């Protein structure tokens, strides 16, 4: 358990879910993976399957239809997990906060650990956010390890 969780913290796999983003933040998330920003140097890998993932990156506004999908993806990720809300829309609803089909913020649906501001969030900010998320992840792992030892 200790070994697995520790290696998860050293090389976290992220899954990206686009709730209702304008693509601006999405392409910046993808840009993080590409040679210039290259988050793979932190051991971070982007994958498609939420069951393999440790970190959930959410971009865009939530609406009543994709809320269910978001919750579904979140629940499929094994514990411990970290959620990073990327961009103004994911944090608060952004410019679309007043629209009738928008829920103001991802944190109304699932617990969020890190908020990355910006419209669109810059790759540097996203990397900062993910790295901050990793610290939280480490804390969660330690908490779990303690529990395991306590038992």
């Amino acid at each position, binding site marked *: 358990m200790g070994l697995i969780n520790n290696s998860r913290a050293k090389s976290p796999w992220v899954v990206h879910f686009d709730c209702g983003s304008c693509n601006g933040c999405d392409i910046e998330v993808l840009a993080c993976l590409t040679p210039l920003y290259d988050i793979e140097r932190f051991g971070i890998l982007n994958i498609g399957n939420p069951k393999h993932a440790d970190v959930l990156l959410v971009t865009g506004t939530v609406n009543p239809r*994709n809320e269910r999908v978001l919750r579904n993806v979140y629940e499929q990720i094994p514990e411990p997990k970290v959620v990073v809300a990327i961009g103004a829309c994911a944090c608060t609803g952004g410019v679309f906060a007043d629209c009738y089909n928008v829920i103001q913020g991802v944190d109304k649906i699932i617990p969020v650990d890190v908020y990355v501001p910006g419209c669109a969030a810059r790759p540097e900010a996203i990397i900062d956010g993910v790295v901050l998320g990793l610290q939280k992840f480490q804390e969660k792992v330690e908490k779990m390890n303690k529990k395991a030892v306590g038992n």
Partner: protein
Amino acid sequence: MGDRRTVIPFGPQHPVLPEPIQLKLVLEDEKVVEALPQIGYIHRGLERLVKVRDFNQMVFVAERICGICSFQHAMSYCLSIERLMNIEVPERADYLRVIWSELHRVHSHLLWLGLMADAFGFEAMFMETWKIREAVVDMMEATAGSRVIISTCQVGGVRRDIAPELLQQIVKLADDVQRRVKAIEHSVLNDYTIKKRTVDKGVISKEQAWKLGAAGPVLRASGVKWDARMIGYAGYKYLNFEPVVETAGDCYARTKVRFREMFVALDLLRQAVAKIPAGEINVKVKGNPEGEAFIQVEQPRGEVTYTVKGNGTKNLEKMHVRTPTFANIPAFLTMLPGCELADVPVLALTIDPCISCTER
């Protein structure tokens, strides 16, 4: 045969789809027989924001309809308001609009090429195209201060000027990108795997494409010579170019059209830099919009139309946007029956879907 049918939900969260859309695919073994889209995952309802935001503020909302072609959304919106208010935009602003539009086109097509490569499983090509794209995005940051949503368009012109040294940099960038894209083009268009997976896949005939209202590269790959830029909005009326047309109408033709369009866009950039006059970049806007306007603008994915209605107050009465992917979905649905399940991602990508545009 009825009992051998399987319904496969494709999406909303799927590795090749950057955005949530669900396709319900009815399969007979590996063959798709029917397809039904289920959209609405990104619907925000931003068109109703016209009641709360005034017509100047709406520019910022309009450019957030889509983060990839954001400048063109802002420009289309501004063009429609300018049409209502009979505003003459200074010539330099017209040229600057062309420059930013074409930068967006190049970056969008490169982005698409990367995603396409990713769908094929060509990871290295994805990285390579996005590396080239990074240079274009850097130029947007240098000229506008932001990488993706550049917010330079306003009603009556543009907000920022581009300095002469930077304009020369754009020409240099165009040459550089052209060289690097040429190198990729050769290996993409002659690759055995790519040919195998794209040639004669998802064929749309010329008549079908026109009748189904397909837009942009999908329309032109089927042999219809139609490009909204020929209408001559913004600075396009001063520049020389020909719409890129292919006749095969399959995935390979659509790939080819996008490659060639990139070169046309780079050429337009060079022309615009060479011809750009000195002068003002915006005019003062007085009064409120009144009347109806219908504007067609060519985006990287195809033709976008803006219908706006003003009633003489600072809030518009109605704004409606029909985006290229909205127009291409019917064409996509007719492509799907008959193809194999493994081809669906490639077919989906050749219409270059932008769901956030579609649903607004």
